[in-house]
């Protein structure tokens, strides 16, 4: 009896009992789909967190005053003026000492009350800075334009406002070229920023950007800076830029004790790597859940395969009594188990792929290809083993023992 005959027998065996076959396939399907979906949800939420942090700008460094340990002025022995000033900016822009720095944007930030035609709105962060700030902090202009280098040098009172500010002050009026009052000073709106997704508790759209010269002259005075935003040339040079910036600042601020610098340089990529490890922990957790569901699914498959074959021990006895060699019986059951496992497994993959097209509890699942391989591989292996092992046990019995089996 050749292999094609055996395969035909197996197909006939699968189709002969449709309910049993479809239950086996269903068990398989659920096992495989659950694992793939769970891992995809975990992966998707991890990806979502990473995407939000990437929006902050992965190539930027934020220099703020104050040491790593506690506030800025706790170092009483330090008589040096260590506050960040705009005088530091040219040193940081030096291409020789800081080759990995792309742009430097000093920042003075304050909360300001603005008004337009009787409407008032308090802007959470009214930022005086350089034009390079837009790129460094991942803002883009949706309407109008940003302020220019010329605006900066001439100290023009122009401002680029965020979406929240535009909506609150202007409503449906086009804000471009309108004048708003900021703490009694008139500023001309030249542009509106594109909407930026919220990445934390602060609304990133409740913001206004203006030339630092104009802001210092009319609003804050020429005091110290809130922070300096440094943009590295690329994501891979962030750490190089960080050490260059630190060295320059140590030199300029005449820091003698490097373990207690009066400033902090933080990179968004540090934040990113922290969040990545968090996401990884999350994926590992979900992987563990998936592993357990794979185990449970596997036991389900084991169960139905064992029952299916044990139920057919008598049939195996009949076949042997009619002169079926052990190998033929085994091949038939192995092919049956393969057909059921593979169909069930593939349907499970299809179900999982369809499932990941929907947003599950606010998370867009992202399939991990290895989870498909793992879920499919393990389930099919379990299906094959527990489909063929009891069959081989039954086929090894003397025909009369298999026939007497109840």
């Amino acid at each position, binding site marked *: *009896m*050749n292999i094609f*005959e055996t395969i035909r*027998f197996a197909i*006939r065996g699968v189709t*002969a*009992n449709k309910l049993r076959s479809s239950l086996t396939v269903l068990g398989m399907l659920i096992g495989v789909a659950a694992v793939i979906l769970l891992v995809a949800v975990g992966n998707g939420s991890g990806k979502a967190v990473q995407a939000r942090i990437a929006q902050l700008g992965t190539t930027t460094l934020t220099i703020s005053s104050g040491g790593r340990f506690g506030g800025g002025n706790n170092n009483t022995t330090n008589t040096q003026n260590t506050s960040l000033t705009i005088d530091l900016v040219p040193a940081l822009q030096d291409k020789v000492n800081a080759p990995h720095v792309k742009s430097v944007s000093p920042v003075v930030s304050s909360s300001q009350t603005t008004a337009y035609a009787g409407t008032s709105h308090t802007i959470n962060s009214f930022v005086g800075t350089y034009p390079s700030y837009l790129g460094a902090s991942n803002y883009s202009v949706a309407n109008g334009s940003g302020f220019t280098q010329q605006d900066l040098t001439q100290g023009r009172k122009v401002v680029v406002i965020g979406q929240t500010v535009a909506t609150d002050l202007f409503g449906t009026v086009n804000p471009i070229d309108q004048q708003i009052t900021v703490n009694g000073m008139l500023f001309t709106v030249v542009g509106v920023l594109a909407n930026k997704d919220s990445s934390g508790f602060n609304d990133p759209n409740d913001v206004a950007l203006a030339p630092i010269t104009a802001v210092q002259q009319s609003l804050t005075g020429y005091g110290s800076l809130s922070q300096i935003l440094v943009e590295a040339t690329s994501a891979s040079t962030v750490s190089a830029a960080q050490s260059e910036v630190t060295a320059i600042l140590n030199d300029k601020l005449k820091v003698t004790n490097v373990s207690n610098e009066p400033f902090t340089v933080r990179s968004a990529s540090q934040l990113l790597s922290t969040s990545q490890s968090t996401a990884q922990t999350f994926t590992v957790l979900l992987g563990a859940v998936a592993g357990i569901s794979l185990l449970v699914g596997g036991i389900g498959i084991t169960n139905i395969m064992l029952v299916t074959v044990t139920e057919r021990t*008598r*049939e195996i*006895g*009949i*076949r*042997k*009594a*009619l*002169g*079926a*060699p*052990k*190998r*033929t019986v085994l091949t038939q059951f192995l092919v049956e188990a393969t057909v059921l496992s593979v169909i069930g497994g593939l349907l499970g993959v299809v179900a999982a792929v369809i499932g990941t097209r929907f947003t599950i509890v606010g998370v867009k699942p992202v399939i991990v290809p290895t989870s498909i391989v793992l879920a499919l591989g393990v389930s099919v292996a379990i299906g094959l083993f527990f489909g063929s092992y009891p069959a081989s046990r039954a086929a090894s019995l*003397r*025909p*009369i023992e298999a*026939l007497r089996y109840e």
Partner: protein
Amino acid sequence: MTGMAHPVLDVRTVVKTYGAGETAVRALRGLSLVVERGQYVAIMGSSGSGKSTLMNILGCLDVPTSGRYLLDGVDVSRLSDRQLALVRNRRIGFVFQAFNLIPRTTALANVELPLAYAGMKGGERRRRAAAALAVVGLADRAHHEPNELSGGQQQRVAVARALVTAPALVLADEPTGNLDTQSTADMLAVLDRLNRSGRTIVLITHEPDVAAHASRLIRLVDGRIVQDVRQAVPI
């Protein structure tokens, strides 16, 4: 190899014990039996007399605890699993009391099964299976599944399956045990025809009417032969 040189069945002091120790059941206690080609043997005995055990050993479904069993002069205990499968397939046709058809499989497919295991091609197989079904008068039920057939019809499918390979030896373990009078008569007619065409038949039965069809009657008591008589076959 001639028929006279080798009896079809040659059973020599066969013992079959189930279990071990004090609970051991001795089903066959040194039974010897020789059946020549073309004989029609009926085996009778009360339940527990060992007749089914004997039948299973004759059909190579079970092996004796001790003693020798020669089928066509070949010592069965020396055959490998594969060779035993071949013997069951080519030499023996077995009819069970419980029919033992494969469920959810048509009558034709059930009858085809031994031919498939013998390696016969599909077309020839279907032709022979249909012919065997015609012999037992079930040509019109070929595409019915076992649960759509009456007990008598199922047993006739089982007989068709036993004779489709044209085996020299047909073993029937209480083939009429579950059948009504009419089905029993049909069944016996089929077996009579087979015997007239030269097949050796060994049949187990409780019923004297059935045993009367055989040319030789053997009675078993407690795993031993107590009576072995030749009898005239009613025409």
